C-alpha cells in the first residue's frame, strides 16, 4: 500500500483534537463537554457503557452529526460544519457498528467503491470503458487486490456481501475503509460478533495497518482484552461525559471506570 498523500505529520503530533464537544438530541444529551485528542499514528480506544455516546463521538468526528457545542480540529484545521463526504475526502474513513456494506455488491466492488474518491477519469472515458478509465480501473484493482490479500478474503472476492456471515462482513468493511487510504481510521466495534480466532485475526490486521502505514486509529470496542492489548491510550465515556483518559493500565485501575464499566470481573 502506498503512504497517504496528505501533508506529512510526524508521529506524536496531535492529529485530531476534540474540544468541549456537546451533542444533544432534543432532551437526550448524547455528549456533554467532551475533550480529548488523537495523536498521529496511535491507536486510541474509546470505551464506555452502552449508550455512553461512543458512536455519537465518531459521528461528530466525521461530520455525520454536528456538535451542538464545542469544536473539532483535524490536522490543525478547525472545521466548521461539514458534510461527511468532505471529511472522507480529508482522510477520515470508518467502519460501522451495524455493518453498513453495499449489500448487493461483491466484496471486490465494495472495496472498489471505497476507492471512488481516488479515481479521477471523467465521464466520457467511463462511457467507453477505455483509455484512462480502463487504465485507472486496473490500477485500482491491483490496489484492491492487495487489500484483499492482506485481509485474507480472496475466496469471497466475487460473493455478494449480503450473503456473507457477519464476521466476514466486518472484515470487508475494514477493507473498504482501508481502500480510502485514510489518515484517520475510525473503527466502531470491529470485533463484535466474532469468535476468538477471528478477533485475533482482526487484531493482527489493525496492528499491521497501524504499524506499517502509520495510520491513526480510533477504536471502539467492548472486549477489554482487545482494548488493553492493542491501544496506546484509552478514553472512557459514561453518560456522554469523559470519565477517564490515559494508558490502558491507568484506565484499568481507575475506580470510576471499574464502577461504571468494567465491573468486578476484570
Amino acid at each position, binding site marked *: 500500500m502506498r503512504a497517504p498523500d496528505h501533508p506529512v505529520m510526524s508521529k506524536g503530533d496531535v492529529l485530531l483534537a476534540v474540544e468541549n464537544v456537546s451533542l444533544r438530541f432534543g432532551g437526550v444529551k448524547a455528549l456533554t463537554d467532551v475533550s480529548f485528542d488523537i495523536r498521529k499514528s496511535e491507536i486510541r480506544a474509546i470505551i464506555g457503557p452502552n449508550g455512553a455516546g461512543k458512536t455519537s463521538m465518531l459521528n461528530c468526528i466525521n461530520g455525520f452529526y454536528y456538535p451542538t457545542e464545542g469544536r473539532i480540529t483535524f490536522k490543525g484545521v478547525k472545521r466548521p460544519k461539514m458534510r461527511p463526504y468532505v471529511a472522507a475526502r480529508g482522510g477520515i474513513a470508518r467502519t460501522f457498528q451495524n455493518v453498513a456494506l453495499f*449489500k448487493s*455488491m461483491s466484496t471486490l466492488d465494495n472495496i472498489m467503491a471505497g476507492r*471512488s474518491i481516488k479515481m479521477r477519469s471523467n465521464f466520457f472515458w467511463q462511457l467507453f470503458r477505455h483509455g484512462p478509465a480502463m487504465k485507472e480501473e486496473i490500477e485500482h484493482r491491483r490496489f484492491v487486490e492487495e487489500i484483499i490479500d492482506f485481509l485474507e478474503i480472496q475466496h469471497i472476492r466475487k460473493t455478494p456481501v449480503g450473503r456473507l456471515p457477519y464476521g466476514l462482513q466486518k472484515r470487508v468493511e475494514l477493507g473498504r475503509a482501508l481502500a480510502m487510504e485514510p489518515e484517520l481510521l475510525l473503527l466502531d466495534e470491529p470485533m463484535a460478533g466474532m469468535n476468538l480466532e477471528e478477533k485475533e485475526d482482526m487484531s493482527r490486521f489493525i496492528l499491521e495497518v497501524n504499524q506499517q502505514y502509520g495510520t491513526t486509529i480510533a477504536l471502539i470496542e467492548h472486549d477489554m482484552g482487545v482494548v488493553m492489548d492493542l491501544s496506546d491510550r484509552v478514553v472512557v465515556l459514561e453518560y456522554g461525559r469523559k470519565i477517564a483518559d490515559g494508558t490502558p493500565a491507568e484506565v484499568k485501575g481507575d475506580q470510576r471506570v471499574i464502577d461504571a464499566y468494567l465491573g468486578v470481573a476484570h
Partner: protein
Amino acid sequence: MLYREAGQFKTNYAADSAIFPLRQDRLGLGVIILAAYALAFIGNSFLLQAVMIPFLVFSLASIGLNILTGYTGLLSLGTGAFMGVGAYACYKLMTAFPGVNVIIWIFASGFFSAAIGALFGLPSLRIKGFYLAVATLAAQFFLQWCFIRIPWLVNYNVSGALDAPLRTLFGTPIMGPNATPQTRYLVVLTIVILLTWLASNLVHGRIGRMWIAIRDMDLAAELMGIRPLQTKLLAFAVSSYYCGVAGALLVFLWYGGAEYDVFNINQSFFILFMVIIGGLGSLIGSFFGAALIFILPIVLGIVLPAMLSPFGISVGADVIEHLRFMIVGALIIFFLIVEPHGLARLWQIGKQKLLVWPFPY
C-alpha cells in the same frame, strides 16, 4: 456440460474485470446480436413494426429507468414525461434544422430530457423512497401539461400532435410514412445496442459503483466520500437521457406521430413495471421486463382465441382482453413469487445451475 467456467483462467485484471468474463456468454451475446440483425430480413412487417421496434424502444426506456431506480434506488414515476421531453425536443430540433441528419438530433434530444430530469432530481437530496415519487410525479403532470399548453412545441400544428416528417439516412427514408419497417427496425436496433453498450460500461465502472453504493446505503456512501447530490443528479441525467432518446424513437420511428397523451402516467408505470419485473439493477433484465410486459400481452392476444376456439368457445375481443388482463396480472404475481428479484435473477440462477449441472449444488 457445455457451460463451464473450468479452464478459463484470467491472467490479468483487465480480462477479469471484463463485463462478460465467460467465453460462452460472449459467444451467446454475439449470436443474439446477429440474430437480431438477421430478423430484419426474415421477419414480417407485423413482427418488426408491432413487436420488435416497440420492444426495443421500451427496453431502452427501461434501461433508462433502471439506471435511476434499479441502480441508484431512486423511485421515479416521471419516465413518461421525460420520454416526452425527448420526443418534443427532437421534433423541435429536426424541424428547426432540417439539414442536419436526424440521427444526430435523436441523440441530441436526450440532452434536453437529461437537463430537465436533473432539475426535477434536485429534491432527491432531501426526499427519499416513495416520497421522492412525488417530485417525479410533479414532473410527470407538469411536463404533460406543458406539452398540451405550449403549441410552440408542436410548431403550432392544428392537430396539437407530433408528426414525423420524412427524414433519410444514406438516402433511405428512416422516418415518415415511406420508411419501411425494416429500415426503422435496423436504426432502432443499432441505437439500442449502442446505448446498451454504453450503459453497461457505465454501470460496471466507477460511476456504476457509486450509484449502487447510494442505493444500498446512502449514509455509508456519503461517509466514504461519495457526493450524494452529484451522484444522484448524474443518475437522473443519464436516466433521463435514455428515456428521452427512447421517447424520440417511440414517436418518430414507431408511431410516426403521436399526441401528448402517449406520455401519460400510465406510460411511466408501464416502464416501471418492466424494470421491476425484469430485475432492478440489471440491464439484461430491462430487456426481459420489456418482453414480458409488452410482448406477452400481444402473444396472449394471438394465442388465447386460438386456444379457446377448439373448445367451441368463441369469445369476443373484449373477453379476450379481460382474460389477457387477468393472465398478465396473475403472471406478474407468479413471477414475483418465484423470484422477487426479477427475471434477470431467474436467469442468473439458471446459469448458476447450468454451471454445476448435473449436480444440484
